[in-house]
């Protein structure tokens, strides 16, 4: 009899809390979004599953001796997993469009306004009861506006590990929502004539330029902003593996083996931060709202900078491509292309939007470095 009682007390039903139940629903919801709605499934599916696992009562999988906890300790606390993802992103990204038209970097810079505006927003939320974001918390929340998953995870794991779960979920969810969030903003801020601007074809880029590009970026980072060196370093290493043409094996390993395996483990590790105590708070609600604001402001800032560049160049730049500056590669560029085609069926902006799009990746890595240098310690 006593044994049966002991047994009963080891079941999940006897131990489950409402927080865990809610978080199991949240995990299921993320998996639903990943599979049925195809919201960034590569990360949201493992994150959602990690949320399920870490909220199984009694099992303690997210604890220090649990599998998810150990993966988190080993790969996220050290920063190694997001950096390895960035290595793969570098090996997967073609920067040719950016090299052919470097001025699009300015668009990538403008879109980072979303990061800093959101930082302010997070601090302002402290006026409301239930919010108590430190400067480091606010910086980690702001980076959602960078629309770059690994950068957000890297910064959040350094500045605000307790918010990591909510920040990662927000970042990837909004990246998936780019096709819904961006178009109205883009249409509202541009005139019909601006959306109609046809851009000059991009010049061809030589192999040597593509090899030198990552080295130039790295050198500048070393000289100006060493705090961004881990992120920029891994991104440029991956890109150099890709473009050098002499280490095909390593380039493939970065693009496939490394990024795939690390994605599974990283997703699970983030899930370990989706426990009820950390996630079911008013702060999470704030983060989700701020994330949407961040994306919108970033998009708007990019488009406005696009309009400025359009004026300055005498109408050679279509302002729509500024929206791609938030990164969210390659989704944002595709959205630009789609909105452009709505106006003019022959105006393919995809290639032109790739420049600001990949510039946005560099831009948010730089912004992350700035935040690390100024807020971290």
């Amino acid at each position, binding site marked *: 009899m006593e044994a049966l009682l002991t047994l009963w007390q080891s079941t999940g039903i006897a131990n489950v809390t409402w927080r865990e139940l809610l978080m199991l629903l949240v995990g299921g919801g993320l998996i639903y979004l990943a599979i049925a709605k195809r919201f960034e499934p590569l990360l949201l599916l493992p994150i959602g599953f990690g949320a399920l696992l870490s909220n199984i009562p009694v099992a303690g999988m997210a604890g220090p001796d649990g599998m998810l906890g150990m993966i988190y300790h080993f790969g996220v606390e050290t920063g190694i997993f997001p950096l390895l993802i960035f290595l793969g992103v570098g090996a997967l990204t073609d920067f040719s469009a950016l090299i052919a038209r470097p001025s699009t970097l300015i668009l990538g810079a403008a879109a980072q306004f979303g990061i800093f505006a959101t930082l302010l927003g997070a601090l302002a939320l402290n006026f409301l009861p239930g919010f108590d974001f430190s400067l480091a918390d606010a910086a980690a929340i702001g980076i959602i506006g960078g629309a770059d998953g690994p950068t957000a995870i890297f910064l959040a794991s350094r500045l605000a590990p307790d918010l990591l779960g909510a920040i990662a979920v927000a970042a990837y969810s909004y990246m998936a929502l780019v096709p819904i969030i961006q178009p109205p903003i883009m249409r509202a801020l541009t005139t019909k004539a601006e959306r109609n601007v046809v851009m000059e074809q991009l010049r061809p880029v030589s192999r040597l330029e593509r090899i030198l590009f990552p080295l130039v970026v790295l050198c500048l980072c070393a000289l100006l902003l060493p705090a961004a060196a881990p992120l920029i370093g891994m991104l440029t290493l991956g890109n150099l593996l890709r473009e050098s043409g002499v280490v095909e094996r390593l380039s493939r390993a970065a693009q496939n083996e490394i990024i795939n395996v690390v994605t599974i483990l990283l997703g699970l590790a983030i899930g370990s931060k989706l426990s009820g105590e950390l996630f079911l708070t008013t702060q999470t609600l704030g983060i989700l709202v701020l994330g949407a604001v961040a994306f919108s402001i970033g998009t708007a800032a990019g488009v406005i900078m696009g309009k400025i560049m359009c004026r300055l160049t005498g109408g050679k730049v279509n302002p729509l491509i500024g929206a791609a500056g938030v990164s969210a590669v390659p989704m944002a560029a595709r959205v630009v292309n789609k909105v452009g085609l709505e106006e003019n069926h022959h105006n393919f902006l*995809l290639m032109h939007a790739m420049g600001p799009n990949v510039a946005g990746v560099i831009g948010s890595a730089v912004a992350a470095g700035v935040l690390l240098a100024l807020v971290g310690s």
Partner: protein
Amino acid sequence: MDTAVADLLIEGLWLMAIGLGIVFTFLVTLVGLLVLMSKAVARWGPEETLPATTAGVHAVAPPKDDARLIAVIGAAIQAHRRRHRP
């Protein structure tokens, strides 16, 4: 508490100003360096013999295998044609 929040907000404004400043400085400098780099490559770099890519979106898998495939198929068809010759 509200004054503490206001202080934080002011710090946040500073952060925004400095942060955006650095981001723009960094990327504008990068624009300059890239322009210089491309000019230098155009002047002193080797002549490109391979057709350069104009751009390319996340080209994951190189089309190497297809090339091999096509080569093998070409050879197969050659062989086949030879056998067919009257």
